[in-house]
């Protein structure tokens, strides 16, 4: 993979990038796995909490309209 980060932000202060491209290529083989599990679990918990509050707190207090 070529190093080509020329256009992102090529100000004079932005020349140095400490990331090694081969290392990057190798971690990119696993990368969104951890993020997917972590973010997915969080979102699943959010939905679960939402449904629990809806059915166990909101509805028993009496419907409104």
């Amino acid at each position, binding site marked *: *993979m*070529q190093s*080509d980060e020329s256009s992102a932000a090529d100000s004079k202060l932005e020349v140095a990038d400490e990331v090694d491209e081969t290392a990057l290529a190798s971690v*990119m083989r696993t990368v*969104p796995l951890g993020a*997917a599990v972590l*973010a*997915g679990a969080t*979102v699943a918990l*959010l*939905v679960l909490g*939402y*449904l629990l509050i*809806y059915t166990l707190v*909101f*509805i*028993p*207090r*009496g*419907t*409104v*309209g």
Partner: protein
Amino acid sequence: MSDTPHEVHESRILRTELLWAFGVGIFVAASLSMIVFTALTLNVNPPSNVERIDPKTLHLSGEFAEQNLGTTVFGDGTVIVRAIATQFMFVPQCFAVPANRRVTLRFASPDVIHGLLITGTNVNTMVVPGFVAQVHTEFTRTGDLLMPCHEFCGQGHSEMWATVQVLPVDLFKPGPDGRVSCAKR
């Protein structure tokens, strides 16, 4: 178009993001489907009653004149509570409602914006001058509940609250004129 490995990988990232976006879609659908389901089966709505009423002449109007406020049971069994939210008092300051029976609460403000909730229930509405705020509900437990004004209405806002007496059905006895008042405690 000959794709370089770079572009192959870039499109793989975008496909992963798209997959995640699909998950986001499920999240959105799950939260909305609960709303739609309860709206269709239990008639759950936010209180919306676009019924205009002149705040300046409320005290001259029929419904919200002073002596008509409070709980009334009509001939067809409808239970209507009418109350005024005004600076810095609810009138009446206590009203009685039956438990486990459909009740319609109607509020109006002659002056500024007020709001109210009844603790431990889902009764919650803004009381906006110019409109009748109306909540249809059923109280699911008995007892004395607190009904504070929850929207800033002036310097006396913090002292503005009323009591709601939720009575068991057998204790909820309208008088000959259909009126029910709070039991003295």
